[in-house]
């Protein structure tokens, strides 16, 4: 059986994280990324903005999971 209960929970921090993730995907913050230049890998910056935040989201999620379940055997 895998360990089911997290060692600790980071619930409040997670709420902040969700709100922040939504905030960068909608206006007014999205306006920062809403431009063509600089293009990266041939993609317009507006698309790079969305994709990069998704990458960051994944890394942070892994962080949350490791924090909550880390150290349990």
């Amino acid at each position, binding site marked *: 059986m895998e360990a089911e209960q997290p060692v600790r929970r980071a619930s409040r921090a997670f709420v902040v994280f*969700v709100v922040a993730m939504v905030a960068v995907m909608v*206006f007014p913050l999205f306006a920062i990324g809403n*431009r063509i230049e600089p293009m990266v890998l041939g993609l*317009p910056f507006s*698309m790079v903005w*969305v994709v990069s935040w998704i990458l960051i*989201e994944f890394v942070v999620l892994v962080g949350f999971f490791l924090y909550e379940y880390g150290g349990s055997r």
Partner: protein
Amino acid sequence: MAAWHIALLAMAAYLVFAFALGIAAGRGRSHFSVSEYAVADRGLGLLVMWFLMGGTIFSAFAFLGGPGWAYSKGAAAFYILAYAALGLLPWYMIGPKVARLGAARNYFSMGDLLGDRYRSRLLVVLVGIVSVLAFIQYLTLQIKGMAYVFNVLTEGHIPFWVGALLAYGIVVVYVVTSGVRGAAWSDVLQAILMLVIAWILGLYLVQTLHGGTEAMFGAIIAERPDFLLIGKEESVMSAMAFSSAVIISTIGFVMWPHLFTKSYTTSEKRIKLTVLAYPVFALFLVPVLFIGFAAIGVVPPDAIEKPDQVLPYLITHELGASGLVYGLIGAGALAAAMSSSDAISHGASVSVGRDIILPLKPDMAERTQLLVMRIAVVAVGGAAYYLAIFGGEGLIQLLLGAYGYIIQLAPPIYGALYWRRASREGAIAGLLTGAAINAFLQFGTDARPLDINPGMLAFLANLVVFVGLSLILKPRAEQRAHVAGFVEA
């Protein structure tokens, strides 16, 4: 043999395979247990869980609507990435709580939870009806997708109504016989097939039609500078429309009742791991958008009836006349649509059986309940089929329309799990208000105040009524312990 013969054969072979797998998944299991049908006796593996959830995103909407939006609306298509990446995030918090409550109190549906928390049968029935309305629109979207694929890839030889009937008929049969297990195992196959095909196709089309992303986007920018931006003068989508669509999807995504049903089958750790995998699924969608961008300047706008047909059109006009390629891609697109429709059909049938019929007739035997659920698969499917053939809406409108209803469930759900004052009266009045406003904005008028998404407006009204009424009413002292059981779970 003409190319479309081979395409048809390949798609038919795929359908037979998917059908056999779906049926086989249910073998050796009890066909007569509500618990097995609805939640696979609470024991699905992580991989299957991922694909079951992933399948919901990689639907006909993503596979056909994604390229369609990139082609016709440019940057607005980034909404699809945001939606896929953000949708499941709140589940990290709510999911484990729902799973604990479900396991401890033996729930099968979302209505079970709400009915128990608010002690109201009326609310359960309302939730059931609102969910089924949303399910039908979402299914209509998938059925339309399957029909486009059949129709275009066989060069019009399979009429729209036959293609839809064929593909969806198979889904209905394996959901009826195998329940959630049938849906889960065919999703694993379908998600893998669709992913591989989307990537190969996206990268190949960009390379052959334009020689790389730089040249492709460069040409688009030279032609229409604002097309790849949101809310500029010549952009297709306004800042408000984009933002409200992202928000409504983030709140709405985890309110799909079948998500609740699925979560009763799993554990807290698995739920969190599922959420973790989701941004990766969103990144998988990037090449899907490339397909649509690659079509700009290649597919003349008047060559296709609807932007949703851009992918099938590209395949038949730009990939040479290889019937096998048509067939493979057709199978990928069918996979995308089928993996969502099976989950949705299954979810809708549980909603009808548990949340609408059972509260009205509580003394039903288990076998009768199952029969009702199985009949519901066919009935809901029939309604969606009818809408797909005779309704005029595009894939995206159907998706957002479905979310307009689903998001109305958010106030009672969040209230049930986190707010002690949340009251039965507030939940019922809010839900009625929200659903009525959404239906009116969607079908009764073309007005779009401030360009805000209609579902979002309805949601705000729902929230005001729910919170307002709950604050006005005195909390019932005798229910304090009962409510605490949910908030502290």
